């Protein structure tokens, strides 16, 4: 993060401004990924007018960085109308998509709207692996074709690779593919439990030994010494810090208008169909509770040597039953990075 970005985040936190928002415009999808944490039926999505009104509220609340995602957002016929309004309200817009519905004309429209970047999930450069994860034959070929259209228009593309057991050996190929296509590459080994509670998909998490190997791959993690450094010294600054930006400078809104602290933190905190966004942001009991939690308040974690450098996710902890508890997948990550067991592990 740049110094200026860090300054803006600090200022937004001090002012209580939601600098970033993630809006899923649908949970419907044209892929059926093995690891997906969402139900794909439509349970009453916000209509165009509701979303446009919400965007106005988000702009007035101070949201600058807006992520539009799903489900597959291009399944909404009004997506470009939504994006156009978002850009008219001068958001910095990032679109997350599987891109299989993006062809030349869609790439051209995204370019004309000055969309900041498009994030596309690619799980392998081998069709038999990628398509087996998405359960859509030909999906890799279509996603790659879309990336070429987007890059031809000069749009920034990030290839996001979720690492799981079926594709654990394939990330070097995806990284090379990203380089060939002129796209950024990001990899995440986090599998999220299903939003409705089913934890069986966590079986897809890569094995500990594989995670250790991934985290010690210099071409992937950058500066190895820095990435795998021992935990930072625990002091009052560490213990008084907040766990992450969720509910501090970040909000998530579902296709049904529900407000959560983050896309990975399904704590119901209000609904924009019943209240103004800003009223929820300022007054929600749930968001206030999340904001009140510092590292000092974390059960177990506050006494763990990793607390100052752990990637602990309060949303995953919430889904494990205690938002003040550990997210055990991150305990595993801390161990895989440093070789030092966490207190929880």
């Amino acid at each position: 993060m740049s110094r200026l970005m860090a300054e803006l985040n600090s200022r937004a936190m001090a002012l209580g401004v939601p600098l970033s928002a993630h809006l899923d415009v649908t949970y419907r999808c044209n892929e059926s990924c093995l690891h997906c944490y969402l139900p794909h039926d439509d349970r009453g999505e916000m209509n165009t007018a509701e979303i446009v009104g919400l965007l106005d509220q988000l702009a007035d609340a101070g949201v600058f960085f807006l992520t539009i995602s799903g489900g597959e957002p291009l399944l909404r016929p009004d997506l470009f109308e939504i994006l156009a309004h978002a850009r008219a309200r001068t958001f910095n817009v990032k679109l997350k998509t599987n891109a299989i519905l993006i062809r030349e004309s869609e790439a051209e429209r995204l370019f004309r709207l000055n969309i900041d970047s498009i994030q596309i999930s690619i799980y392998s450069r081998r069709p038999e692996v990628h398509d087996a994860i998405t359960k859509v034959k030909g999906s890799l070929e279509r996603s790659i074709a879309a990336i070429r259209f987007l890059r031809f228009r000069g749009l920034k593309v990030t290839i996001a690779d979720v690492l799981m057991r079926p594709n654990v050996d394939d990330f070097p190929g995806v990284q090379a593919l990203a380089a060939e296509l002129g796209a950024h590459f990001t990899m995440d080994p986090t599998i999220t439990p299903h939003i409705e509670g089913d934890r069986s998909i966590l079986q897809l998490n890569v094995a500990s030994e594989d995670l250790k190997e991934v985290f010690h791959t210099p071409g992937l993690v950058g500066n190895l010494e820095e990435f795998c450094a021992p935990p930072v010294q625990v002091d009052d600054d560490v213990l008084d810090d907040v766990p992450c930006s969720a509910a501090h400078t970040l909000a998530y809104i579902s296709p049904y208008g529900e407000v959560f602290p983050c896309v990975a933190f399904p704590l119901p905190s209000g609904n924009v169909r019943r209240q103004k966004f800003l009223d929820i942001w300022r007054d929600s009991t749930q968001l206030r509770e999340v904001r009140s939690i510092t590292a000092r308040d974390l059960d177990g974690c506050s006494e763990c040597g990793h607390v100052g450098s752990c990637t602990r996710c309060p949303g995953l902890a919430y889904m494990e039953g205690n938002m003040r508890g550990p997210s055990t997948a991150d305990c595993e990550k801390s161990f895989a990075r440093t070789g030092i067991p966490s207190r929880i592990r």
Partner: protein
Amino acid sequence: MTEKYIARSWAVAARMLGGEMMIMSADSTLFTLNRQATIIWNAADGVTPLREIVEREICGVFEVDPAVAYQDAEDLVRDLAGHGILILSGQPAVGRETAP
């Protein structure tokens, strides 16, 4: 003297935060504008001459020498135009490239 006109670029993202404008240029460079620069940015409608903006919005509010204020404003808009976040023109410029 030739008038200068300034318009906000449609390509950028912008939002006020604590009285200062945050701007992300099309190449994803992040800027913040101080209070006076924010005033000029907000007044950049493409049709109001820069001189009039400075006289009305800057000299009318701050105790500043008009010639110095105008020179500072010219430097500022030239800089912002160089980053593609303002469009600088010798004529009123309203069109596709400017923000609504």
